[in-house]
C-alpha cells in the first residue's frame, strides 16, 4: 500500500496532506486560533536559501547556459505576460461583479497576479525530479522558475508600492522607476551572486591545510550572498543561484574529495529538509480560521493561470524556436505549460500583504492556497502519467564516458571554429570566448592547482579511474593471484596515482589511491618475475594490512613502546629511501651525477676513513640506480647541474673541514650520499627554523640512511617491505621530514620506481620476516657505523681552517664534515642554530631509549655539526638571501636554482630544500594512504 501511494502521489502532495492532518489536530487539540508556522520571514530567510543553493550548485551549467536565452525569455517575458494577463482578466471579471466581494481595485488584482503567476522553484523541483523528463525540458522549466524570481519580486514590490500610494496617484516616473528597478534587482542579484561565488573560490584556494572548514565556507558564503542581496533589496534567489553556479566551477577544483562529498550530502540534506518543512508547513498553515473562500475567484484564478500559462508557452516557444537549433516540440510545450506549478513562494508572498492596505488579503490567501493545492495535487499527480502517455523523451542519468567527454570537447572546439569561419557569433563562440578568458584570468587566481584548459576531461578521467579501481578491487579482492591479466587496469591505476601525486585537486581522492600503488608496479615492469613478486607482495599486503592499521591507531597519541621503536627505524629508513628516490628532479640527477662519478669522474672524492664502506657504496649505487633506472628524467642536463651545485655547496658550507679532506678519487661512500641528503634536508629545516623537531627527524633519517647503506644490501632490501608496513610511532612523526620531499617534487616517477625495485628483488623472497633480518643486520653493523663516525669526528673536529678547495674535493668533504661533531658539540651547534635562526632548535625528541637511539643521536649530532659549519659560511656568503627564510615561496625550485647557482651554491640548496619542505602537508596524505595500503 505504502509504496503504491508514493508512486502515485508526488512527495509534495503527501507532505501537504500530513501537514494538514497535523494542522487539524493542532487546531482541535489546542484550540489555537491561528497556527501559522510558515511566516514569510522563516520562509525567505531560512527555508528557501538551501533549496535554491542546492539547485544552483548542482545546476548543469552547460545546459543552463546553452538554453539561457530560452530560459530568460520565459522567465522575464513569460512572467510579465502572465502577471498582466491574469491581473487584467481578474480585474475585468471583477468589474462584472461576479466575485461579489465588493470592490476589486485593479492594482490589488495585479498585485495578486504578480505573486500567483510565478512558477515556483520548490514545487517544480519536487515534481520534476520525480518524472525525469529530458534535460532540456527540465532545464527550461526549472531555470525559468529560478530566474523569474527577480521578475516576481520586482513586480510584487512595484504593485505593492503602487497600492500603498494609490491615494497620491501614480505618475509616469513611478512606472519608469519600476521598470529600471527590475534591471537593478536582476542584475544586482546576479552580480552579488557571482562576486560571492568568486570569493568562495578564492577562499577555498587556501583551505588545503584545514580541510574541515571547506564545507562551511561554501554554505556560509552562499548564504552571505543571499543575505547580501536581500539587504540591498536585490533578488536573493538570483544571487544564491548564481553564487552556486559560479562557485562550483572553482571550488570543486580546490576542495578535497571528502569535502566534496560532505558538501554534496549536506546540501542535499538541507534542501530536502527545507522542502519537506515547507510543504508540511504549507499544509499546517492551511488550517486556520482566516480563510475567505470565494468560489468564483478561486476557479477563475486557476483557470486563468492555466490558460495564460499555456498561451504564454505557445507564444514564447514560437519566438524561441526561431533562434533555437533544436526546436521545442508540441509535447514539450505541453509539459512546459503543464509543469508551471505554483508553490510556497507565492504563499509566503501573499502572507506578506498587509491587510490594512489590501482588504482582500484573506481572499487572496485562500485563493493562493487553492491554486497551490491545485497545481501540486492535480498537476503534480497527473503529470507523471501524462509524460508517459505522451512519450516525452526521458533522461537517463549517467556519467559521461571518457570517449564522450573527449569527443564532445572536440566537437565544441570544432563548432566554435566553424562559427568563427562563418563569422557568426553563436553560442559556441561565446562559450569559447568565456572559456579562454576563464582559463587565462580567472582560473589561475581561484584555483590552487591550475590544471590546464580542460579540467573536465581530467575530472572525468579521475572519476572513471576511481570507479575502475573500486570495481577492480571488489572483484579481485579474493583472487589476487590473477593479477597478470589486468595490466591494462593497472595502467589505469598507475596513472591515476600519478594524478594524485601531481597534487591535482581533481584527483584529490588520495586516500583511495591505496590500491594503485600496488597495481602500478605490475604495469611498470611486466616481466614474469615481477609479476610473481607482485603477487606475493599482494598477499603480504593483504595479510598485513589489518595489523598495521591497528598499530597506527594505537600510536596516534604519545604511546610509544619498544616494539614500535624497533620497527620505526625501518620505517624511517624506508621513507628516507623513498625521499631520496623521489626527491624530485634533483634526486634524479643524483643518480646521474653519481654514475658519472662512478665512472671515475673528478668530482668524486673520497677519504680513507670511508673506504671501508665500499660495499655500502656499492649497494647504494645499485639500489638507487636500480630504483631510478626506469624513470624518465626530465631535462637531465638541468638536473645534473642542480645536482652538482648541492655538491659544491656542501663543500663550501663546511669550511672547517676542507682542510682535512683527503684527495682520494675513488668511490664516494654511500654515507656521503646519505649525508648529503641529510644536509639538504637539514637545510630545509633550518630554513623553516620554527620546527625544531623536524631537524632531529631529519638527522634520524640520515642515520638510517647510512646504516642502511652500510653494507647491508640484502637485508635492507628486505626491510623495505617491513618499513612500508610499519607506521610511525608518534603522531608527530607522521608529519616528519621523510614526507617532505615527495609531494612537491616527486610525482609519479617516485612511486613507480619504488615498488618495482622492491618487487623485483629476488632476495626478498628469502626473507619472510624482513624486520628480523634487518634488525639482525643492524645489530651487527651498528658498532662499525658509530665507530666510523667517532673516528671521523676525532679526525675532523680539530681541523677547521677554511681554504677553498676545488669542487671535486668539496664533494668528498661533506662526509667527514658531517661527522665532525658527533658527540662533543651537541649543545654548541644547536646554540649556533638558535642564535642564527632566531628559533629554538631543540634537541632530539626522546624517542629511543635503547641502542638505536644512540645511533640516531650520533647522526643528529653529525648533522648539527654540518649545520653549524655550513650556516656561518652561508651567512658569510649570502646572508640576506637565506636568513629571511623563503619557506613556501619556492614552488619552482629549478628556476630558482638556476638563477642562484651563479651566486652561491649554498643558497641553491636552501631553495631546493625549502621547496621540498613546503610540500610536507600534501605528502602526508600520500604517505598515509600508502600506509593504509598496507605497505
Amino acid at each position, binding site marked *: 500500500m505504502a509504496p503504491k501511494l508514493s508512486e502515485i502521489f508526488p512527495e509534495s502532495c503527501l507532505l501537504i496532506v500530513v501537514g494538514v492532518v497535523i494542522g487539524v489536530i493542532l487546531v482541535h487539540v489546542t484550540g489555537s486560533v491561528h497556527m501559522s508556522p510558515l511566516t514569510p520571514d522563516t520562509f525567505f530567510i531560512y527555508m528557501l536559501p538551501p533549496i535554491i543553493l542546492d539547485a544552483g550548485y548542482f545546476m548543469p551549467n552547460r545546459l543552463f547556459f546553452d538554453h539561457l536565452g530560452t530560459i530568460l525569455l520565459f522567465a522575464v517575458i513569460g512572467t510579465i505576460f502572465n502577471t498582466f494577463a491574469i491581473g487584467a482578466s481578474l480585474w475585468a471579471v471583477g468589474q462584472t461583479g461576479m466575485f461579489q466581494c465588493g470592490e476589486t481595485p485593479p492594482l490589488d488584482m495585479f498585485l495578486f497576479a504578480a505573486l500567483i503567476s510565478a512558477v515556483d522553484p520548490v514545487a517544480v523541483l519536487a515534481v520534476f525530479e520525480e518524472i525525469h523528463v529530458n534535460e532540456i525540458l527540465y532545464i527550461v522549466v526549472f531555470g525559468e522558475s529560478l530566474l523569474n524570481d527577480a521578475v516576481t519580486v520586482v513586480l510584487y514590490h512595484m504593485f505593492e508600492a503602487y497600492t500603498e500610494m494609490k491615494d497620491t496617484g501614480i505618475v509616469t516616473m513611478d512606472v519608469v522607476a519600476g521598470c529600471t528597478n527590475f534591471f537593478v534587482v536582476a542584475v544586482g542579484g546576479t552580480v552579488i551572486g557571482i562576486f560571492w561565488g568568486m570569493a568562495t573560490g578564492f577562499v577555498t584556494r587556501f583551505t588545503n591545510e584545514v580541510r574541515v572548514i571547506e564545507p562551511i565556507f561554501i554554505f556560509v558564503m552562499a548564504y552571505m550572498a543571499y543575505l547580501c542581496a536581500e539587504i540591498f533589496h536585490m533578488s536573493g534567489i538570483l544571487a544564491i543561484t548564481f553564487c552556486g553556479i559560479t562557485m562550483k566551477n572553482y571550488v570543486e577544483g580546490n576542495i578535497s574529495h571528502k569535502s566534496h562529498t560532505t558538501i554534496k550530502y549536506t546540501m542535499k540534506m538541507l534542501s530536502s529538509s527545507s522542502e519537506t518543512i515547507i510543504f508540511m508547513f504549507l499544509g499546517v498553515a492551511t488550517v486556520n480560521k482566516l480563510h475567505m473562500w470565494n468560489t468564483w475567484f478561486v476557479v477563475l484564478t486557476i483557470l486563468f493561470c492555466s490558460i495564460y500559462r499555456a498561451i504564454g508557452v505557445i507564444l514564447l516557444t514560437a519566438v524561441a524556436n526561431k533562434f533555437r537549433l533544436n526546436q521545442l516540440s508540441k509535447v514539450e510545450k505541453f509539459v512546459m505549460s503543464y509543469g508551471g506549478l505554483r508553490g510556497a513562494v507565492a504563499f509566503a508572498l501573499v502572507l506578506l500583504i498587509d491587510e490594512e492596505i489590501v482588504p482582500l488579503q484573506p481572499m487572496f490567501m485562500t485563493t493562493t492556497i487553492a491554486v497551490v493545492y491545485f497545481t501540486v495535487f492535480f498537476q503534480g499527480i497527473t503529470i507523471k502519467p501524462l509524460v508517459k502517455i505522451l512519450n516525452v523523451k526521458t533522461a537517463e542519468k549517467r556519467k559521461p564516458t*571518457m*570517449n564522450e567527454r573527449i569527443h564532445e570537447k572536440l566537437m565544441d572546439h570544432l563548432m566554435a571554429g566553424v562559427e568563427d569561419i562563418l563569422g557568426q557569433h553563436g553560442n559556441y563562440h561565446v562559450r569559447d570566448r568565456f572559456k579562454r578568458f576563464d582559463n587565462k584570468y580567472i582560473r589561475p587566481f581561484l584555483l590552487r592547482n591550475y590544471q590546464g584548459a580542460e579540467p573536465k576531461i581530467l575530472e572525468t578521467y579521475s572519476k572513471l579511474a576511481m570507479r575502475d579501481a573500486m570495481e577492480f578491487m571488489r572483484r579481485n579482492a579474493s583472487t589476487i593471484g590473477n593479477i597478470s591479466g589486468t595490466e591494462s587496469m593497472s595502467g589505469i591505476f598507475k596513472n591515476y596515482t600519478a594524478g594524485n601525486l601531481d597534487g591535482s585537486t581533481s584527483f584529490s581522492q588520495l586516500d583511495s589511491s591505496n590500491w594503485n600503488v600496488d597495481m602500478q608496479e605490475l604495469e611498470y615492469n611486466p616481466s614474469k618475475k615481477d609479476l610473481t613478486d607482485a603477487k606475493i607482495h599482494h598477499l603480504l599486503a593483504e595479510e598485513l594490512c589489518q595489523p598495521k592499521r591497528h598499530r597506527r591507531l594505537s600510536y596516534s597519541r604519545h604511546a610509544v613502546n619498544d616494539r614500535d621503536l624497533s620497527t620505526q627505524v625501518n620505517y624511517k629508513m624506508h621513507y628516507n629511501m623513498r625521499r631520496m628516490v623521489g626527491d624530485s628532479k634533483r634526486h634524479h640527477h643524483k643518480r646521474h651525477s653519481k654514475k658519472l662519478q662512478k665512472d671515475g669522474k673528478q668530482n668524486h672524492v673520497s677519504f680513507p676513513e670511508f673506504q671501508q664502506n665500499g660495499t655500502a657504496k656499492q649497494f647504494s649505487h645499485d639500489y638507487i640506480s636500480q630504483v631510478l633506472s626506469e624513470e624518465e628524467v626530465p631535462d637531465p642536463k638541468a638536473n645534473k647541474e642542480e645536482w652538482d651545485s648541492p655538491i659544491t655547496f656542501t663543500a663550501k658550507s663546511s669550511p672547517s673541514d676542507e682542510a682535512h679532506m683527503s684527495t682520494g678519487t675513488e668511490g664516494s661512500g654511500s654515507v656521503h650520499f646519505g649525508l648529503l641528503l641529510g644536509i639538504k634536508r637539514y637545510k630545509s629545516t633550518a630554513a623553516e627554523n620554527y620546527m625544531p623537531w623536524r631537524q632531529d627527524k631529519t638527522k634520524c633519517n640520515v642515520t638510517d640512511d647510512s646504516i642502511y647503506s652500510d653494507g647491508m644490501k640484502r637485508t635492507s632490501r628486505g626491510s623495505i617491505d617491513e618499513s612500508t608496513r610499519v607506521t610511525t610511532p608518534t603522531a608527530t612523526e607522521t608529519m616528519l621530514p621523510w614526507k617532505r620531499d615527495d609531494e612537491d617534487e616527486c610525482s609519479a616517477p617516485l612511486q613507480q620506481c619504488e615498488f618495482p625495485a622492491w618487487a623485483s628483488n629476488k632476495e626478498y623472497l628469502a626473507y619472510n620476516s624482513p624486520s628480523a633480518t634487518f634488525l639482525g643486520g643492524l645489530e651487527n653493523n651498528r658498532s662499525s657505523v658509530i665507530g666510523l663516525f667517532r673516528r671521523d669526528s676525532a679526525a675532523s673536529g680539530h681541523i677547521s681552517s677554511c681554504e677553498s678547495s676545488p669542487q671535486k674535493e668539496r664533494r668528498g668533504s661533506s662526509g667527514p664534515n658531517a661527522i665532525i661533531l658527533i658527540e662533543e658539540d651537541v649543545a654548541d651547534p644547536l646554540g649556533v642554530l638558535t642564535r642564527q635562526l632566531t628559533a629554538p632548535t631543540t634537541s632530539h625528541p626522546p624517542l629511543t631509549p635503547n641502542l638505536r637511539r644512540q645511533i640516531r643521536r650520533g647522526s643528529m649530532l653529525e648533522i648539527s655539526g654540518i649545520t653549524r659549519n655550513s650556516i656561518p659560511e652561508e651567512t658569510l656568503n649570502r646572508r640576506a638571501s637565506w636568513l629571511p627564510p623563503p619557506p613556501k615561496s619556492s614552488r619552482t625550485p629549478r628556476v630558482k636554482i638556476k638563477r642562484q647557482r651563479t651566486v652561491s651554491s649554498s643558497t641553491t640548496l636552501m631553495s631546493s630544500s625549502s621547496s621540498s619542505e613546503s610540500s610536507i602537508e600534501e605528502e602526508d596524505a600520500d604517505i598515509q594512504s600508502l600506509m593504509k595500503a598496507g605497505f
Partner: protein
Amino acid sequence: MGNRSSLLLREEEIAQIQQETGFTPNQIERLYSRFTSLDRGDCGTLSRDDFLRIPELAINPLGERIVNSFFQGDMYNDRVNFRQFMNVLAHFRPVKKNKDNRLNSREAKLKFAFKMYDLDNDDLISRDELLAILHMMVGANISEEQLTSIAERTILEADEDGDQMISFEEFCKALQRTDVEQKMSIRFLN
C-alpha cells in the same frame, strides 16, 4: 562586398550548390560574401592562411585541424574553392526530418569529427593521434604521462576488437548516446 560577391555567383552555381548541399540561396549568398571576405587574394579560393587569419580560429586549440578538414578533397591541394567550402560547411546543417540529409546526417557528422582525429587517413584513431588532439585541447599544464594514460584509457574504453585503435564503428558506438545531430549543427543565418 556582399553585392559584388552575389554578382560573382551565378544563378546556376547557386542552384547547383543548393542541390548539392541543401543550403538555401540566401544562405549561399551570405556564405559567399563571407567566403570572399576571407579571400584576401581575390582569387576565388582560400588558402590555409586565409583561414588562420581569422583571429579566433587562430587561437582555437584545434584551429589547424579544423582548417585542415577543409582541405581533404579527393586530391591533395592547398586551396579550397567555394563549392568545396560549402560542401564542408554542409556537414553542420541541422538535421531536418523528411529531407535529404546526405551531407549532414548523423553519420556524416560523426565522420567529420572522426576525420579530425584521423590524420593519416587510415580510418583508425591511434593512440598517438588521440594524444595529439588531447595535447591541443588540454594544453601544457598536464604531464605527458597523465595525458598518455587518458588516451590509453579512452582507447581501451572504445576499443572492441582489441587492436588498440578506434575504428569509425567503434567511434560511433562510443558516441551512441550523444546527441551528435544537435551538437554538430549550427543555425546558419539566412
